[in-house]
């Protein structure tokens, strides 16, 4: 079991980055650095994470970083993965991409690279909307959420990307949350030691886009897991295993009320009780779906 005090003290996200206060992407990058260290070659498509690096010639990320076009991240990392043995040295290609880059515009490239089983780690940092362009809906925006392009609340459900990736028959798929850094770091380290395409989907509540106080990022992320709205698992060889604490929430009675998770966020402000019921049904069906793969 990994302990926080055993983690390296090196800092990979430097002070002076330009993310909003309470930014989950910044938090996630800090954990990523702790987990994988200086061998990372980070491939970042257009997103808040391209902005938080700050202005050249400086950078707030103390690692090798390639910023790339919105839809191209998986393929660029694939190119690096396919040549890394030839060029020698320590190179771990890691894609760090938003939900928009992953589930929408870059999806074909992601699917292609996964099918080729390229030796890389792909992290989808999911703040459930296009934040960089000012909070527009993506296919990973949940039901009912306000965004600037769904002012009455999104009428469709979030697509189940981790399972879609599982069905690519890649060696490793995991979900994670910025509220559970040890879990996230352990999963990254496990991924590091597996050859082939590794997909990790990081739930990343965004105070700016979700309309909550920047001091509450971790709290909201934790509530997502505790209410069962976000499920932590990992899958090797096509079999899903719920990871703590989500394994305890298989029993619905142990979950916190969904309302607690929803009401803390301004983006769900106009949900009526019947909408919350619909939301709950969708969460239940997601659990059912995931359980089928255990």
């Amino acid at each position, binding site marked *: 079991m990994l302990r926080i005090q055993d983690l390296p003290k090196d800092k990979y996200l430097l002070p002076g980055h330009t993310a909003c206060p309470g930014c989950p992407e910044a938090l996630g990058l800090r954990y990523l650095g702790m987990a994988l260290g200086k061998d990372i070659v980070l491939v970042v498509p257009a997103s808040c994470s391209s902005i938080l690096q700050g202005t050249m010639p400086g950078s707030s990320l103390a690692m090798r970083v390639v910023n790339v076009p919105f839809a191209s991240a998986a393929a660029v990392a694939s190119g690096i993965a396919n040549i890394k043995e030839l060029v020698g040295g320590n*190179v771990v290609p890691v894609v760090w991409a938003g939900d928009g880059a992953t589930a929408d515009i870059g999806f074909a490239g992601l699917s292609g690279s996964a099918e080729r089983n390229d030796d890389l780690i792909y992290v989808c940092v999911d703040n459930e909307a296009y934040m960089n362009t000012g909070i527009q809906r993506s296919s990973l925006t949940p039901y009912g959420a306000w965004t600037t392009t769904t002012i009455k609340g999104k009428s469709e459900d979030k697509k189940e990307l981790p399972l879609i990736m599982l069905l690519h028959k890649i060696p490793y798929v995991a979900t994670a949350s910025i509220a559970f850094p040890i879990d996230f770091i352990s999963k990254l380290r496990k991924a590091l030691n597996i050859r082939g395409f590794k997909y990790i989907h990081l739930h990343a509540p965004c105070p700016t886009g979700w309309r909550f106080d920047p001091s509450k990022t971790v709290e909201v992320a934790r509530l997502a897991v505790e209410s069962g709205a976000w499920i932590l698992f990992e899958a090797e060889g096509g079999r899903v295993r719920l990871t703590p604490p989500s394994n305890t929430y298989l029993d619905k009675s142990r979950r916190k009320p969904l309302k607690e998770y929803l009401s803390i966020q301004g983006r769900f402000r106009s949900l009526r009780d019947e909408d919350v019921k619909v939301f709950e049904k969708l969460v239940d069906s997601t659990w059912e779906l995931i359980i089928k793969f255990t």
Partner: protein
Amino acid sequence: MVIKVLTGNYAVAEAVRLSNVDLITAYPITPQTTIVERLSEYVDLGVIKSRFVRVESEFSALAVAYGAALCNARVFTATSSHGLLYMHEMLWWVAGSRIPIVMAVVTRSIGPPWNIWNEHSDFMDQRDCGWLMAFAENNQEVLDTTIQLFRITEDERVYLPGMLGLDGFLLSHTSEPVDVPEEHIVKSFLKPRSQPYSMCGTELITLGNLPKAEDHMMMRYDIQVSMENAKKVIKEVDLEYSKLTGRSYGGLVECYRCSDSSYLVVGMGGWVGTMKDVCDELRDLGYKVGVLKIRFFRPFPEEDIIEVLRSVKGVLVFDRSISYGSLGHIHAEVLARSYRLGNRPVVKGIIAGLAGVDVGVKEFMNSIVGFVNEVEERGYVEKYSEWLLPG
């Protein structure tokens, strides 16, 4: 010296085989497909040691090529038409990153309607991206220029990607005898891979985060400077290559019977061969015509063109592409250069051969004779830009 009978596409593949490429990636599209198939075969049979990444789209092909090239790999890709258009965003990114990559573009029409036949619109659509853009007249030149492009793009004075155009079917699927240089010759000609930086080295580099406007403008300016430098490099490389193989193409342009001509026909690609034949016939009839072949469209051979325009009365430019609402691409460029001369020739443009429409000896003959006679009679032409419509 080995003479092989090769289609244009196989000439590309031979060049890649000889050029010690680390990674090849491509997505199939007619008429480029046989390049992909041949190279894929070479890799599987162990003829070459490259990796072959079989991607799911052209956009990814160039992105994969870029990722590998960022880590100091020599890479190659090829495409056509819709595939090239699909790459467009990556084309800019590669050039802006100053990463050498070589690509073959087997030219083809753009739909709708679906049409696999040749024209140059796909190629021309990429002219502002910061890539070097060469075009071949025949399969020998296809092979030679592909090899040369690796050398030119990896020259530290250039450090830009480069594409080679070849006419779909007219070259890509037509067999010609091609002199294939021996491996050791190409090896000594191409130095080891060189590029400005590597993302897989020990240096902590951040590529492409937010710039200050002033810095970004300077980067853009640097690309223009490198394009200018490339003119010199292209000529040097042509000279060096000719010492090794006996074949020179004159650098950015090739002038055929130009020195004593009063009229010039300008073109690019396979049909220049026909233009040369027509030129010979017209010479026999007493017309003092020469042919100027555009070998590099980017950088555009400004100085060479001004030089040859100086001494002629009329220039007739044939374009296999059109910028809708304006002129043929080469015509516009030549016209702009002619204004650098006090005493400038009449410059007329003809749009022809779009969508795969055949243009042969007869069509060239009529257009050229008509043009020369009109200029001789009046000193100007009624129509400065015209379509050679079918039928």
